[in-house]
């Protein structure tokens, strides 16, 4: 994808990543196929370096602060007590949820409701047991520098594999806590989700931070849905101020498969959430939705890529951004409809609400269509709160601050209301509303 090679900006830090990798690689103990994948990823990263804004896909997201940071690459993971975990209040998404907790990228069985079931195994255990894992199929390390780092360095994550027609009724909740310490920490979360034909599950990923030091989390999730399989996916990205979160997700959908994903990007100073979906079988469908809320100088980037490779596919995208302070939002949504993909129905929508003069957004919805019998549409808007609506509410006795909050929440609720898990929706709504009232309060009204 990225043929352009810019010289690595900071060879010093790059070298440190390479050294750290070589140290790890020398330890061995993994299947040769995985070691080869990791080496290939590291080579790709070495060649490409940290992305610069001269690359089209990274044009609006500057990661030089990450490139320059001296992360403790060999630091041991922290351990987290149940009390410490409770203190950062991970959401309850359903009373009966399967809760799988990861601390600094390592599975923490003592904090989890399962350590192993037929359909779940920590990746580390699967690797140690010599399982042949289909990693790297959905996300290519080449052209995805942070996914490359993730591939080279991840130690653990969730491997969720449902047999044909297996239905996991209760939602599966992956909770990631990145702990900050004296030295900046880099953590890599890796998930492999495989649903065989007709299988069904709901998966929620939550990313939280503990402490105020600098952290980098890279997250890669690979989703493989076989015929008629269905996955409901929600991601809550809620880290602290000093965190950077760079994620790449990808799903491959066979015939009739259904993938629904909702992203709530509410935390971390610098967040990038990318998701690629390939529709490989007819009648496959996906919905990608998301909400990014930024205040202060937060930067949130959402990237999507939907590849319609075969006929009769449906894809919908609906992303909304609320931007306050001096924050910056980015939406870059791409849809590719290949020549064979007749009767494709692809919709894409991005709406942004700017709450302050200094906030900004770059939005770029793109449709690339090579088939002639398709139904496709896209649109992007950037607006402010409607002064007429504010006045209408005020004329009924509602204060200006409350009126702005009410209208802002109404804008965000369009995405929130799609969440089916009631406790999860309530949690996200509370998080969001408190963040939005902070934003409205900063208007100085």
């Amino acid at each position: 994808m990225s043929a352009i090679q810019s010289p690595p900006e900071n060879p010093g830090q790059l070298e440190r990543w390479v050294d750290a990798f070589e140290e790890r690689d020398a330890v061995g103990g993994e299947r040769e196929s995985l070691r080869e994948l990791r080496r290939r990823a590291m080579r790709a990263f070495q060649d490409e370096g940290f992305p610069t804004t001269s690359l089209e896909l990274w044009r609006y997201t500057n990661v030089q602060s990450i490139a320059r940071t001296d992360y403790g690459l060999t630091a041991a993971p922290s351990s987290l007590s149940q009390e410490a975990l409770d203190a950062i209040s991970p959401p309850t998404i359903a009373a009966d949820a399967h809760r799988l907790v990861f601390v600094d990228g390592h599975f923490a069985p003592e904090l989890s409701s399962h350590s192993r079931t037929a359909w779940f195994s920590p990746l580390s255990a699967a690797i140690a047991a010599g399982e042949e894992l289909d990693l790297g199929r959905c996300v290519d390390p080449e052209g995805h520098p942070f996914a490359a780092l993730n591939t080279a360095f991840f130690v653990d994550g969730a491997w969720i594999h449902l047999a044909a027609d297996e239905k996991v009724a209760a939602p599966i909740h992956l909770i990631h806590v990145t702990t900050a310490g004296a030295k900046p920490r880099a953590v890599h979360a890796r998930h492999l989700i495989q649903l065989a034909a007709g299988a069904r599950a709901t998966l929620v990923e939550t990313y939280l931070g503990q402490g105020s030091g600098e952290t980098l989390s890279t997250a890669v999730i690979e989703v493989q849905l076989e015929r008629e399989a269905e996955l409901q996916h929600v991601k809550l990205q809620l880290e602290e101020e000093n965190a950077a979160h760079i994620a790449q997700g990808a799903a491959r959908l066979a015939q009739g498969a259904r993938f629904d994903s909702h992203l709530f990007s509410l935390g971390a100073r610098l967040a990038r959430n990318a998701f690629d979906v390939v529709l490989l079988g007819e009648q496959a469908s996906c919905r990608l939705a998301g909400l990014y809320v930024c205040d202060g100088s937060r930067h949130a980037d959402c990237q999507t890529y939907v590849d319609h490779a075969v006929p009769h596919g449906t894809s919908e995208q609906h992303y909304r951004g609320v931007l306050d302070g001096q924050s910056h939002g980015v939406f870059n949504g791409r849809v590719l409809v290949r020549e064979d993909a007749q009767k494709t129905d692809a919709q894409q929508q991005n709406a942004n609400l700017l709450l302050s003069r200094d906030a900004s957004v770059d939005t770029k919805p793109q449709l690339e269509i090579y088939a002639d019998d398709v139904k496709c549409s896209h649109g992007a808007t950037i607006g402010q709160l409607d002064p007429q609506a504010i006045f209408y509410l005020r004329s009924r006795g509602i204060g200006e601050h409350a009126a702005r909050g009410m209208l802002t929440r109404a804008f965000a609720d369009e995405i929130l209301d799609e969440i089916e898990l009631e406790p999860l929706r309530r949690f996200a709504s509370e998080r969001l509303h408190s963040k939005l009232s902070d934003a409205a309060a900063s208007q100085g009204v």
Partner: protein
Amino acid sequence: MTLLKIENLQVSVEDKPILQGLDLTVNPGEVHALMGPNGSGKSTLAHTLSGRDGYEVTGGRVLFEGRDLLELSPEERAREGVFLAFQYPVEIPGVNNSYFLRASLNALRKHRGEEELDAMEFLTLVKEKARSLGMEESFLSRSVNEGFSGGEKKRNEILQMAVLDPKLAILDETDSGLDIDALRTVAEGVNQLKNEAHSVLVVTHYQRLLDYLVPDFVHVISEGRIVRSGDKELALELEEKGYGWLEEAKAGA
């Protein structure tokens, strides 16, 4: 005490003088009708009273219960008991009608030092009001005015008025676009307020509404001034003669 006293009010919009010395006094329990040609300044008066941006008061004053109304923010005016039923109500997608109206009523109650109503108490109240105005309950669960027909929007304004129970209701052409049943509904809403010794200023072009709600006073506004006042007979006269006489009076003067 006088409820509303407007003295020599002068208002400009975008540097263009619109109201040019308007006087009007409204006492508790009175219904006043304000009539006049298009562009004469009726909505400008209504908006100025409600505190909308862009209406620059260049002279005169407005007292509400003896206090300077023009000093108050729009929300403070509403909390003091001023209500404007808009000529063109705004659609607010995503904000639930009933939620909005509860927030509004509670803002007023809080201001008056009364207990706020919880969702259940409010629902009981609003459902009863909606029923008495012949409105379907389904309007309560929809977004504020979104996709409402012209007449439904006006009814929704009247529902808000009935719930908020203002001391002064200003109805800006609430009757236009209404069917006969809705017209009666509006009149009932207004008569209820009147019964409680609350006051109403009705802006209208037609006698029709005045058949149902009998005004105590009728005023004719022209070029930003009240040029004639009378009782309900004046409205009938206007219906018959139109506003041509205004020009003649001006030519004769």
